[in-house]
């Protein structure tokens, strides 16, 4: 174990040594693995679920299996365990779980032991039942011990906020006191769901409580990987290919090596690694590198503005792509339709722009490695390091840190492996820091795409046929959210056609839902206008067989007083979207400066049904944040490529939404539900493009069909 000068969490082993309490390592199969050993080699893969550590002073430490990147799940997940074990929340501390997916991972179906991959808003929804079980098991251990100590029947014992109670003899004992005599039962049973806490007795789930990570985020003490300091650490940066796939040739190596403070220059496949004794020195070296970029990579031919023309041709061609869904007889019904409505929508590339630029600290030694990183893919990163160095997984110690934003970008491992390469070459710890320019220019973006929509309207004015062809780059990233499961249209065909431009694309908050729901929800509005229908009523009709969705839409409409009086010079738009199981609807109110072309969003009303919501206060915060981030992408954000090069470089030419452009008022309502929890973190984002475009159409009679709606584009549309 390296001795870091500063580290966010005590290592687990150190913690266990000095904790002096008892760690419950709970096995689902009824085989507990106890003790303070490095259990990694001893676990039964796929079986173990959760950990709770109890100190004699009553402190309960709950392990957090997911990345904390701002979404607040470290608090929500611990609250689920604390709820079932009836812990006193004020005594609960949270620590990142070790990177051991057999224990802390989760499968896509919520089964135990998948990966520790924090994506798709799945942390609470995926872990919910398992963590209730783990909490119930921890409670069982406490009850079991008190029953033995007091020689009473376990069935006579109850718990109440950090205490075990025997009402028959009027005795009460705190969890901390139990730690003093605790012994671990031979077998730990699965607690049947019927014995879990009755939701009406919940003290935490669905109630108001504070996030545990916020105090350290208001005084600068929260530790991100960029804050890690290790003895003898030096600083690294990389000058990366401006065109993805081009190979570097450093022209002035001796000059660079001679610069003050320079310690090393490393040739990487995709760039030049530089290491120096300070950030200033290494950044100076980077500025002074003369590199010729060689090769003829595919990306060199990519010009994003022109790519839309190719997409148009691809959309019109007879070839077929991946079918997302196909039902009824679309061709027949379209030809029989009374009226056909068509529209195309465009979406530029979008950059993650997490506020903490990518970075990692690595110390690679002869046969092992120790790494500090903020990552959405804890186990994937650990494995990637082991594979990269060709050493066993057990020889890689990965310390997970807070993430200064992730949004999908930190599910990649590129930045961590660079730190590993530099440390290996230097034989000492290296902090690898990406500059903002690096982060943008070597980004991996939400793909650009064209959405071609076509609807057939029958004689009764109903939408009888629906065709949606998505054309773009990024393969599997394009299709999410293209389906319309809550709108009943008898004949539909939804398809994705992909082209590879050789550039880097990646999941970005809500993935394809942002572009696809923009197209779908704007197109519905266009149909409503063409049919002289209220867009809210049109949606109500389409989702009449989906009561939960209907309730969400009705709630948003009611909150906004849809159809009521709107202030002079303003207009409203409505939209609906599902994402990660959460149903969400929104209304926004905008005004427009016709001289500058600037749209101002004044208010947003949002409603969601996310099943059981563990932490409503935080869920509202997530929806607020998703609406604002969504609005930023809708109004401002565009990455463009010229000859394969990203044209943007920093926040001056990739402007994020600032405070003055944030809505004056955001109101959120959560629909009460007893359904299983759904994913919340992305749900507010997908409809934002449509609600703004729809409000704009209501205000001006003109339609915005190409995100982002920059002032230049707005003025163009107004003049059209």
């Amino acid at each position, binding site marked *: 174990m390296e001795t870091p000068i500063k580290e966010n969490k005590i290592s687990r082993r150190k913690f266990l040594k000095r904790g002096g309490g008892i760690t419950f390592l709970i096995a689902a199969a009824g085989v507990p693995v106890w003790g303070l050993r490095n259990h990694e080699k001893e676990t039964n893969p796929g079986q173990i679920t959760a950990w709770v550590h109890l100190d004699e002073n009553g402190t309960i430490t709950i392990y957090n299996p997911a990345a904390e990147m701002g979404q607040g799940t470290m608090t929500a997940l611990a609250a689920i365990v604390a709820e079932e074990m009836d812990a006193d929340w004020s005594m609960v501390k949270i620590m990142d779980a070790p990177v051991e997916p057999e224990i802390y991972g989760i499968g896509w179906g919520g089964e135990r032991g998948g990966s520790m991959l924090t994506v798709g808003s799945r942390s609470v929804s995926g872990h919910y039942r398992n963590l209730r079980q783990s909490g119930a098991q921890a409670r069982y251990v406490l009850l079991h011990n008190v029953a033995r100590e007091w020689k009473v029947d376990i069935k006579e014992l109850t718990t109440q906020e950090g205490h075990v109670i025997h009402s028959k003899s009027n005795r009460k004992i705190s969890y901390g006191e139990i730690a003093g005599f605790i012994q671990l039962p031979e077998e730990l049973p699965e607690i049947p769901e019927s014995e879990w806490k009755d939701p009406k007795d919940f003290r935490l789930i669905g109630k108001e409580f504070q996030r545990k990570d916020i105090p350290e985020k208001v005084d600068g003490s929260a530790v991100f990987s960029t804050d890690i300091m290790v003895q003898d650490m030096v600083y690294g940066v990389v000058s990366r290919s401006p065109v993805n796939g081009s190979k570097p040739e450093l022209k002035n190596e001796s000059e660079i090596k001679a610069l003050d403070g320079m310690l090393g220059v490393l040739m990487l496949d995709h760039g030049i690694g530089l290491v120096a004794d300070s950030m200033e020195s290494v950044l100076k070296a980077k500025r002074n590198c003369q590199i010729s970029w060689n090769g003829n990579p595919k990306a060199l031919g990519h010009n994003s503005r022109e790519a839309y023309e190719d997409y148009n041709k691809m959309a019109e061609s007879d070839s077929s792509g991946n079918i997302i869904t196909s039902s009824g007889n679309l061709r027949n019904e379209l030809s029989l339709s009374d009226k056909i409505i068509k529209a195309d929508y465009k979406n530029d590339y979008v950059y993650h722009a997490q*506020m903490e630029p990518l970075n990692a600290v690595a110390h690679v030694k002869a046969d092992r490695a120790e790494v500090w990183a903020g990552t959405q893919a804890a186990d994937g990163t650990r494995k990637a390091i082991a594979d990269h160095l060709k050493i066993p997984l057990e020889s890689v110690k990965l310390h997970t840190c807070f993430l200064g934003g992730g949004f999908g970008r930190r599910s990649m491992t590129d930045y961590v492996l660079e730190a590993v390469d530099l440390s290996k070459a230097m034989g000492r710890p290296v902090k690898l820091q990406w500059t903002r320019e690096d982060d943008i220019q070597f980004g991996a973006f939400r793909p650009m795409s064209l959405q071609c929509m076509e609807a057939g309207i029958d004689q009764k004015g109903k939408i009888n046929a629906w065709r949606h062809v998505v054309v773009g780059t990024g393969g599997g990233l394009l299709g999410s959210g293209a389906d319309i499961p809550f709108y009943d249209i008898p004949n539909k065909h939804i398809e994705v056609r992909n082209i590879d431009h050789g550039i880097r694309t990646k999941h970005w908050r809500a993935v394809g839902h942002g572009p696809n729901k923009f197209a779908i929800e704007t197109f519905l509005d266009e149909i409503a206008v063409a049919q002289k229908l209220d867009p809210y009523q049109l949606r109500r009709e389409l989702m009449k067989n989906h009561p939960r969705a209907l309730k969400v839409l009705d709630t948003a409409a009611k909150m906004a007083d849809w159809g009521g009086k709107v202030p002079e010079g303003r207009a409203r738009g409505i939209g609906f979207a599902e994402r990660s199981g959460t149903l969400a609807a929104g209304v926004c109110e905008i005004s427009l400066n016709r001289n500058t072309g600037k749209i101002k969003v004044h208010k947003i009303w949002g409603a969601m049904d996310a099943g059981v919501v563990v932490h409503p206060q935080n869920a509202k915060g997530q929806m607020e944040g998703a609406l604002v981030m969504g609005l930023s992408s809708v109004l401002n954000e565009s990455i463009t490529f010229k000859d394969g090069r990203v044209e943007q470089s920093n926040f001056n030419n990739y402007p994020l939404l*600032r405070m003055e452009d*944030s809505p004056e008022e955001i109101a959120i309502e959560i629909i009460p539900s007893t359904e299983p929890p759904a994913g919340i973190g992305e749900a507010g984002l997908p409809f934002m493009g449509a609600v703004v475009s729809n409000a704009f159409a209501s205000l001006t009679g003109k339609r915005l069909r190409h995100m982002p709606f920059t002032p230049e584009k707005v003025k163009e549309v107004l003049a059209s």
Partner: protein
Amino acid sequence: MTTSFILNGKKVEVTAASDANLLWTLRERLQLTGTKYGCGASFCGTCTVHLEGKPIKACVTPLSAVEGKEVLTIEGLSENRSHPLQIAWIEEQVPQCGYCHSGQIMQAAALLKANPNPSREEILSHMNAVLCRCGTYPRIMKAIEKTIQNT
């Protein structure tokens, strides 16, 4: 080159190359990592600290510029998170990822020091300097307005 200045109320001396920068000095030489790197070009405000009571971007400030002057960072803003803004930030549950909030709070603290009762417009134009990708702006506004009401 040695630079002396007052950091969070205490005199410090730093010996570093002449091109040393305030942000990297605070973070890497003095290990006050509450001040963050975000863009290196004064666009995002994540690195905001006070120089003689006024908000500046540490990322574009040469170390030599603070010679003999007072620098305040988030670590020196209060004892035990007791600054009214920090209290309001917790009450309103403002941060998400948290990365920008040292900058947000330092920016807001400078405003309230100079003008204890700013209008909403004044708050907006002042706070425009600091970006938040998580979209916590509505809660930042609530926390600042609450602080103004309470003091």
